[in-house]
């Protein structure tokens, strides 16, 4: 299960000293950390589906931070990225933010600023992962419905009363009530509102 893995801070920076000092800072606050000296090394290590966040140097020879970001997006990674930038890198930082980075921080930085951003990123990651897990769960529950139950669900979510649904599907009102109860049970819905929210959540992401 994904939730069992502790979130890790991944650091990609080609400068040995900067990389190592970040490793040590994160160690000093008790955060698990893994460091990489290039974007390619990080990609090869297949860490992008792990919980955590990525602290990424925007300027690197060969594959730059921005290029790595593009590659990770292509791999549908949800790992939040905090870019480390130098002076005068604002245009690049803007580009990075537009491509979905959570934040950027200029060198040299105050440790607390970086740690705050890392914590926010980890929270965001945890949230995204929770949401993803929930969506997967809802999908599984939807898949467990019979075609008739699915028809009833769609009409319930559309806001139709049992009597109307019975008419639409040419069923007895009693039968509709039984299907509806089964749907609520299979979907583990506490209320009609909860059921609607779950279905909408899945539909929205499938658009």
């Amino acid at each position, binding site marked *: 299960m994904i939730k069992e893995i502790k979130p890790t801070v991944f650091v990609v920076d080609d400068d040995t000293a*900067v990389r190592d*000092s970040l490793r*040590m800072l994160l160690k*000093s606050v008790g955060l698990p950390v893994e460091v990489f000296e290039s974007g390619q090394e990080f990609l090869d290590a297949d860490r992008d589906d792990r919980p955590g966040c990525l602290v990424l140097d925007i300027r690197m*020879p*060969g594959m730059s931070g921005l290029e790595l970001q593009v590659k990770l997006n292509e791999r549908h990674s949800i790992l939040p990225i905090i870019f480390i930038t*130098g002076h005068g890198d604002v245009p690049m930082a803007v580009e990075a933010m537009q491509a979905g980075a959570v934040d950027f921080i200029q060198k*040299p*930085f105050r*440790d607390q600023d970086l740690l705050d951003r890392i914590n926010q990123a980890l929270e965001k990651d945890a949230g995204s992962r929770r949401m993803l897990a929930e969506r997967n769960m809802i999908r599984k529950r939807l898949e467990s419905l019979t075609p008739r139950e699915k028809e009833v669900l769609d009409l319930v979510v559309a806001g139709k009363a049992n009597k109307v649904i019975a008419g639409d599907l040419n069923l007895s009102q009693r039968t509709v009530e039984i299907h509806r109860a089964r749907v609520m049970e299979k979907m583990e819905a506490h209320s009609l509102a909860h059921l609607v929210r779950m279905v909408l959540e899945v539909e929205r992401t499938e658009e």
Partner: protein
Amino acid sequence: MHEERPPTAARHASPGTAPRRSNQSELEFRALLDAAVDAIIVIDHKGRIEQFSLSAERIFGYTTAEVIGQNVDVLMPEPYRAEHDAYMQRYQHTGEARIIGVGREVQARRKDGSVFPCELAVGKVQGVEPPRFIGFIHDITPRKLADERLRRSESELRLAQELANLGNYVVHLDQSEPAYYSPQLCRILGIEAVAEALPLTTQLERWVHPGDREKVDEALSELDSPGNAFDCEYRIVLEDGTTRYLHHIAQVTRDAQGNRLKHIGTIHDVSDRRATEDEARQLQERLTHFSRLSTMGEMAAGLAHEINQPLTAIATYAQACQRFMRSPDRDDADVLEALVQINAQALRAGEVIRRLRNFVKNREVKREPVDCNRLLDDLRTLAETDARLHNVRLRIDAEPSLPTVYADPIQLQQVVLNLVRNAIDAMADAPETGREVLLSTRQLPEGEIEIIVADHGSGLAPEAAEHLFNPFFTTKSAGTGLGLAISRSIVRAHGGRLWHTPNEGTGARFHFTLPASPVTLASKGE
């Protein structure tokens, strides 16, 4: 040589005018006449020629028969001729003989009309009446010619010395003769004359520029060993404070026993040339320095980044340290490691600044043996600064154990850095993963060292390639257009060449060569 002549007696003056004399003394007199080197002419009181010696025939080109009985003034050009007539008339009126005496320098005239200088001595033959005069004529044409030649060569030498600003001197070390100092020498030294009591070298030594004293002393010691010459260019500061550059060449001659006889030398005032050279060199140096500064200006962002890296690491290590220290279960090894790194990173930042300062410092050009591989290694920090900023990878492929070159290391770094910067700029539009600059060194079969800077940019357009080395030609918006022009002049000043070829695949390669210095440093393991 004399041509064959009839017997002397046959050429006697006519009996009517000849004095009565015994035959023997007549013959003796004639023999004397003919043996003399100088022309001997006897005239009577009216100036008519009575006797004409063999040497007179030779000198004047007349035969005796042609001149006997003629007035002696046929042998004289004007105005001597008129003067002579006046003398003779005065003599006839007053009985006073004017020109009698020795060593008057006059002009005489040959039969062919040509005039020549001669010394004339005239004596009056005593005890005969009417009186006769005997003239001795010494042709001084050769002496005059020699005098003239000497005077001309002296004045030519003087003029040549003036034009060349060259003076010479001869000092007789055995005091056998007074020393000679040419006028131009005195003029160069700004003095009326060299005091004879003081040997020139002693005087010069007082004036030698303190900065050149060591050089002069060293060169002077050469004079102590036989066969060696003193050859030295140095500055002197004259009494009036002006500085002159002299090229001084001197030699001491010795006798068979090795005793020093004469100190001979020339002093060439090369101040004008040196001043021009100095000015040109200073201009070139200022331009070169300016170009280095502008290169650094263009690299400012990269340099800021390069110094920011260690500063970031230091700050982060220090912050980690503080957290470790506050933690109840801290591990001292972590703290120690962070401190070690802080130290190293502070030195790294200092090193960047040191290299930067070295590079932009305005300094004298100084050549020394340079290991090109070591030079590239030293340059790496600065070059990578720029490379990182543009996401370019810098690779060095050095051939090991290269001979050293004799060069100014900072100027060479300037050339390489300029080529690297151009290479980086050339790849601005290239895909990021392909951006690489390869710096390589190798030794050519002819012994030269070649340094190549290769990029994977778009290569050189033909119209750009044509003007590449022209000053102020640039394809960059912020370039000075001086980089390549100055790089080429630096390489040429080092006896090398700078050119470019297309790179394999895409891009350009810039090559330059430097002659290997004779002394090769043993390669040092890094």
